[in-house]
């Protein structure tokens, strides 16, 4: 039993659906039931097959090697004298492997049982040309009030759109607007008022407000360059103050 019938297996590794499949095949070859197979012999056979396969070709799918590594570990544990913690660990792992093989064996048996049944369309046939006795009556209408109302609104919306073109109203405060407002307010606000006080009044929308601030600053810079007013900022990000032009009297 120690001498594996490995040569045949080496060449047809592709025929197996993964390492577990090969292990099951090897276990079956032990000619005893799965509950009593020698896991140690099984491990040795598997490792022999993998070794043989590596001599034939270098690359081998990762899962075959992962299983080989794990089985090598298992073998080292199984060879330890019974009673040690490591040997118990190996014994437990061997039981898990045996249970997985038994489960796969059950799956095989179930698949074989299903495959042996007369399958519809293979061994037994249902009626080739079924008769249709169902008559579809499509004369009725589904009518519901919500659909009627949606249709009404859709129709009105379409004509409302056709009747008039409404240009979208701009929400942004332009530099021209800011120039005009700065000019209007410069005389009436106290000297060195904050730039914020020159913003338009109804700018609750944050985006519109930021646009107004930048437009007003641009307008202020332009007027300062022309000498029409003066700007001052005490510290970075501090309030920007607007003062009247040097020559202008209050």
């Amino acid at each position: 039993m120690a001498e594996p019938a490995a040569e045949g297996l080496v060449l047809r590794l592709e025929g197996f659906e993964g390492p577990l499949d090969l292990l099951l095949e090897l276990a079956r070859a032990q000619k005893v039931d799965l509950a009593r197979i020698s896991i140690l012999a099984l491990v040795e056979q598997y490792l022999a097959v993998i070794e043989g396969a590596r001599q034939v070709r270098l690359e081998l799918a990762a899962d075959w090697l992962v299983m080989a590594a794990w089985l090598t570990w298992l073998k080292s544990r199984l060879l330890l004298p019974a009673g040690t913690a490591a040997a118990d660990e190996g014994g437990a792992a061997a039981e898990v492997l045996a249970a997985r093989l038994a489960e796969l064996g059950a799956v095989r048996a179930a698949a074989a049982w299903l495959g042996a049944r007369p399958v519809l369309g293979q061994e037994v046939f249902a009626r080739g040309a079924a008769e249709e006795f169902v008559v579809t009556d499509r004369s009725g209408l589904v009518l519901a009030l919500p659909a009627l109302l949606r249709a009404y609104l859709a129709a009105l919306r379409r004509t409302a759109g056709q009747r008039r073109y409404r240009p979208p109203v701009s929400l942004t405060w332009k530099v021209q607007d800011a120039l005009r407002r700065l000019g209007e307010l410069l005389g009436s606000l106290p000297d060195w008022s904050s730039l914020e006080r020159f913003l338009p009044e109804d700018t609750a929308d944050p985006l519109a407000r930021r646009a107004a601030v930048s437009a007003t600053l641009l307008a202020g810079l332009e007027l300062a360059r022309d000498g029409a007013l003066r700007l001052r900022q005490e510290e970075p990000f501090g309030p920007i103050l607007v003062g009247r032009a040097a020559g202008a009297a209050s």
Partner: protein
Amino acid sequence: MTEEEAIRLAEALVFASAAPVSARALAALLPEEMAAETVLATLARRCAGRGVELVEVAGGWQFRTAPDLAPLLRKVVEVPRRLPRAAMETLAIIAYHQPLTRPEIEAMRGASLAQATLEALLEAGLIAPRGQRESPGRPTLWATTAAFLAAFGLGSLADLPKREDLLLEKGLVAPEAGGR
């Protein structure tokens, strides 16, 4: 193969085939000395009076439900249709603005009204002509019917949601008033 076996085979073959089975097709499965026609005729005699009978149709033999049972098996499944969008819009406009003429409907929908749409509504009994407008050409006026109210579960036209409850956007209700 005995005659009984040939009859069994003929029954299975005709049953499983999607199309009628010719005597020649059966003959291909039978021993040479056996006449497929005879086998099929015997099977047909044997099935006579059952719920399913073997009948000769164009191209061969086929199992068919006995004609007297077909009405019992017939099942009518109702699959109601939806009104197409154009018809639903037309119906809604008539419901809210009746009576009105076809050009008026077209003006409100902003789209021309296909004859088929009007006919579909007429056929369903949801609208009906109601008199004529006293204007050049005397165009027909359209209105909804009692069947319309019944179909939408309305007691009367007054049960339709008020237009103000529907038209929350000012732009939709009174474009003449203009502005926003």
